[in-house]
């Protein structure tokens, strides 16, 4: 199983902005029920696209600056980063298939 690392504000630049592959950032919090419900689907997608997609998570309570920087107003919000920029976002409850569809638009093979 691919490990989905929770990253801090300090690590964000290296792990996300300078990542050589598309990176999905899952903004959530421990008190967010929908975030917890989404977790298995996010894990499955991380496993499915391992090697093509990096997946990390940000706890907005631990890293409020990141949530503010990227205009995360509701939870969960998933942002797709490529080349250091946000290229897409998805919010709310998701399914494996809807998340896979979202991800595939931004992978090399889908361009």
């Amino acid at each position: 199983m691919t490990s989905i690392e929770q990253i801090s504000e300090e690590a964000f630049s290296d792990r996300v902005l300078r990542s050589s592959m598309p990176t999905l950032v899952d903004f959530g919090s421990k008190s967010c029920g929908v975030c917890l419900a989404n977790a298995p689907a996010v894990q499955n997608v991380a496993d499915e696209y391992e090697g093509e997609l990096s997946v990390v998570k940000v706890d907005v309570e631990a890293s409020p600056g990141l949530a503010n920087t990227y205009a995360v107003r509701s939870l969960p919000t998933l942002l797709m980063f490529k080349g250091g920029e946000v290229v897409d976002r998805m919010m709310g409850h998701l399914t494996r298939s809807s998340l896979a569809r979202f991800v595939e638009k931004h992978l090399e093979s889908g361009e």
Partner: protein
Amino acid sequence: MTFDEGRKQALLDDFREDGPLAKACLGAPESGGTESVAAESGLHVALLKLLVALGGHSRDPESLAFYLDLLSRIPAGTNGLDLVRSWYAAIWELPGVGIASGIKSTAAYADASAVIALVSDSRSHPVAPQEWRQARAALSAIGENIAPAEPVLAMAWDLDRVPGASADVFYGWQSATTLQIEQRLGWTIADADRLRPAFEEFSKHALAVAGPPDKDDDGWMSRYSAALETCWADRSDLSGLKQRYDAVNAAVADDRAAVTAAARKALIECAKATKADSI
């Protein structure tokens, strides 16, 4: 771990008595309960996740009767994975509420049928992850706004790697019927957006009147509902929209009940047809 006769009876007894296995299964999906019950019982996680999804994660008498009926019909010696795959085929073909009937006249039918063909293949030999992915991508591309494509998309996953997809199929099927009803009755996102502020305002008011929800307070729901009704009665400007919303909700509730009943029945029938030596 094999789902042998002893484990089968232990699981049935546990569900009858609301034991630890039943509690684990019916807990929050993200709690990993079904995984632990699969490890203990020998049943495949995908089947357990489908079982509880079809039961609404509930222990009400109707759901409990369904769990016990299904579990009693799964032959000892199987793990239930093929049962899930056979259920996919069954719900695709069901007359009336079946998924194929909603997708047949759309541009997504061929790609959806390709997914069903892969599901059929998967019953006799492993399907490579790349094949599932290609089938999913093809259906995604053409079926993005076609409601009945959603449950079929959920079928396009390897159940050994992604066992939670089995429940997604059922939820996708329910969502698809909701969308189709909304389209048929002309209920739009704009309609929902017009009502949303009223819902939020009235809910706050009703909570202020009724107090915080208390499951030990038998009168709470009546007070809450009465307060809501008073709010709606004062807004004649929204009455037409609210009546349409209530009609859509009633139609959705009826349809979801029909889909749930059909889904449960199909799984029971597939279980009856499952041979003891299938895996």
